[in-house]
């Protein structure tokens, strides 16, 4: 056995994030870890990688007990981790990012050429296509992920921990990643894979460990199990399917006409003549590989960036290039695509995070003075309703697990009861139980006669929820389908720049 965690317990105050967890990894095995948001998956891996210390329990590597006090020790022991959130230096080249901290030297100087050569070789060896001299920040997310993996390989890791690597990837990128992982295993590496997507587990993992509330509820061989059993172990109940009942569509709530946006820096066209409408009682989905103008579309609608041409009308009023506040007052709520960048203040507590878009409402303030009692009651109720796992509403947001923070943001925006909701990647990183719940909420909002624009790189989500689907490619709308006619194949072809004729 390559690696073994024995009876690991991790306490934060009185709260047990991990409770007597045992876990093992064989050589050349892919061992998946699944579990609800806040089940303790990341925490367990952080202990293995030396970022946290177990309260009790032991870690054995190759049969020898080890104290992993910091990541450098983990790296020396051949353990590498790709984090849930990328940690690259965007302005630097891919090669520089990979060799960081272990730079090849010529005398005392950094050897630029050697670094590029070494990285190119390494990528070649493991069959990962990259260009070492590209700027990391400009590369698509899928490439950035490869860079993270290469970084770990460059450090000489034999065990690679991947924390939700597919959450941010496009379907094609996911496929490529899974191929790379198989390749890595063939070359002698072993992999721990945290994910919320059970199909990935079934497809690639040898074994899977399920965590719930910090405890192991099962370690199974993938061959002998199925997604239903796994989700039962994860959430402790059967999941339902949310149907999309057909209802009457009402007036146009959002109307975008011929908008265009060009990059201030490069002059490149980011949005090209985009036109679309969302009506009352309708969920409109935008499918597309991320980086094809979705972020710009979001910014244009929400007032975060100006458009050069065209118009945006919300709830009957022209909102083209208005301020965020004006647009929000006109009836926008918005689940942002990047929860840490746009969606939350990490150091602030849950109350402050939850209040962002509501603090000015008469229910929560009078003459500029906050009604703290009402606010706290509201936040406590929302946290409960959306099942955000936290020790208290005074905890700062950074201590929530990724999926729980997403739930908090979804709660904030969905509960606003605005006529229009822009939901960008609303279930990124949330567990299957929470995904079911958020989907339910979106459908309910639609059934109540509100308009929802759903932007998601998750095709299954788009297909399940959308009354109509638009496909975006290189800043343009390249296709429109209604619910019955949309299918994964048709969308995929358009998303990749092909056409259906």
């Amino acid at each position, binding site marked *: 056995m390559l690696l073994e965690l024995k009876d690991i317990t991790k306490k934060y105050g009185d709260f047990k994030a991990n409770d007597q967890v045992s876990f093992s990894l064989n050589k050349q095995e892919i061992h998946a870890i699944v579990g609800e948001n806040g089940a303790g998956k990341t925490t367990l891996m952080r202990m293995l*990688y*030396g*970022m946290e210390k177990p309260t009790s329990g032991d870690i054995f590597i190759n049969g020898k007990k080890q104290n992993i006090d*910091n*990541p450098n020790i983990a790296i020396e022991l051949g353990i590498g*981790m790709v*984090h849930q959130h990328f*940690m690259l230096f965007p302005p630097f080249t891919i090669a520089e990012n990979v060799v*960081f*901290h272990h730079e090849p030297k010529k005398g005392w100087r950094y050897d630029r050429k050697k670094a590029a050569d070494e990285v190119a070789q390494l990528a070649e060896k493991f069959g990962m296509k990259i260009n070492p001299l590209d700027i990391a920040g400009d590369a698509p997310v899928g490439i950035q992920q490869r860079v993270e993996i290469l970084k770990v390989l460059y450090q000489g890791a034999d065990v690679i921990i991947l924390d939700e690597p597919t959450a941010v990837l496009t379907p094609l990128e996911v496929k490529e990643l899974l191929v790379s992982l198989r390749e890595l295993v063939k070359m002698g590496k072993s992999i721990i894979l945290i994910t919320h997507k059970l199909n990935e587990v079934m497809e690639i993992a040898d074994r899977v460990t399920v965590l719930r509330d910090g405890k192991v509820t099962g370690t199974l061989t993938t061959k002998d199990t199925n997604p239903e059993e796994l989700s039962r172990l994860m959430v402790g109940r059967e999941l339902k399917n949310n149907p999309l009942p057909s209802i009457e569509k009402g007036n146009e709530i959002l109307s975008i006409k011929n908008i265009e946006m060009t990059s201030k820096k490069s002059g490149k066209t980011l949005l090209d003549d985009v036109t679309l409408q969302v009506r009352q009682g309708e969920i409109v989905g935008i499918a597309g590989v991320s980086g094809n103008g979705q972020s710009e579309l979001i910014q244009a609608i*929400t007032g*975060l960036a100006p458009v050069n041409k065209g118009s945006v009308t919300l709830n009957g009023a022209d909102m083209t290039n208005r*301020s*965020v*506040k004006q*647009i*929000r*007052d006109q009836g926008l709520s*918005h689940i*942002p695509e990047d929860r840490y*960048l*746009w*969606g*939350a*203040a*990490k*150091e*602030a507590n849950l109350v*402050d995070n939850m*209040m*962002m*878009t509501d*603090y*000015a409402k008469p229910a929560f*303030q009078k003459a*500029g*003075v*906050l009604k*703290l009692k009402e606010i706290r009651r509201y936040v406590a109720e929302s946290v409960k309703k959306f099942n955000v796992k936290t*020790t*208290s509403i*005074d*905890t700062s947001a950074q201590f929530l697990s990724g999926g729980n923070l997403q739930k908090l943001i979804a709660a904030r925006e969905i509960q606003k009861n605005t006529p229009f909701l822009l939901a960008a990647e609303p279930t990124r990183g949330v567990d299957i139980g929470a995904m079911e719940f958020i989907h339910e909420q979106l459908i309910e909002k639609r059934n109540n006669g509100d308009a929802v624009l759903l932007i998601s790189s998750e095709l299954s989500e788009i297909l399940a929820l959308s009354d109509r689907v638009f496909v975006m490619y290189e800043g343009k709308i390249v296709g429109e389908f209604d619910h019955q006619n949309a299918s994964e194949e048709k969308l995929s072809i358009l998303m990749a720049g092909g056409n259906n004729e």
Partner: protein
Amino acid sequence: MNKLKTNATVFIQPLLAVIVGLLVGTIAIMLSGESVIVTYQEMWDGAFGNLYFLTNTLERAIPIILAGLGVAFAFRAGFFNLGAEGQLVMGAVTTAIVTVYLPFQGLLNMVISIIAGMLIAGLYSFLAGWMEQRFQINLLISTLLLNYIAVLFAGYLVSEPFRDTSSAGGVPQTVMVDEASRLPKLLTGMNLHYGFVIAIILAIVIAFIMKRTTFGYEVRMLGQNVFFAQYGGINRKKIMFTSLLISGMLAGLAGSVEVLGIHYRFIEGALSNPQFAWTGLMAALLANSNPIGTTVVAIFLAALDTGSLGVERNTDVPNSISGIIQAVLILFISAKFTMNFLNQRKKEGK
């Protein structure tokens, strides 16, 4: 319980810094061959020993508290205002001139000249904000450099156009403020004046604004994550300008109350030499920009100064002992920033 805990941690860090500061002070005293206990006893007596010394310490704390509150306010919104010194001097010189040369009398004169001082100081800090908005000049640099301009400009004003020529020679200074326009003393025979009451009230008001008002909420959120604030519809420009204005006005008030409460005139160098503004900055940083904390730390730092004067009077330990302790505190502040930075990196596994 959680809340109690976070409230406690607010005070643990500065407390720890102070304890280590005093320990290092102990070593310094031992090196100078004096009794540690006697020295600290003298220091305590010099700062709090009797009503006179106590009120003296509190008086000294006034400008430190106000300047500290100013720095803390801007810092909360995410803007580093290093210009408290210049703003303080601008406020002081404006008050000193307005009170003498405008035709108002008594209490009204006092109020008007204080407001004038605060306004000019606020606008001076506003100017830095405008330069960042208009020309992308880094606030850190502009506020810092504006200090020199303010101090030299005020020096010019009192050396040339507004110099008190009745006393030949000596330090350049303005004409005395008339009796009726001065800030009254809190206790007869003591230095402590009503500026202290103003400072304490303002600390409480600011604490309230930060915690309990929508404006305070906007300030805090902007300071914590600009993008989040923008996403929520908070107007960065508006908050930047208002918080810089308030920050400058508080620093300016520090200068104004010094003029009307203790010097009764603007004397060149009298407000910049004691480093009130920088001590205020230190108080704000040690207290993590918490207004009440800033006030407490400011009083402590003032006590360090007055206490070491007592030490100098009664022992052979030089009064730079307070400088040593302050230096340790500064080290602590920078250590805190470095630690935060390193922790961040460690978490990222670099």
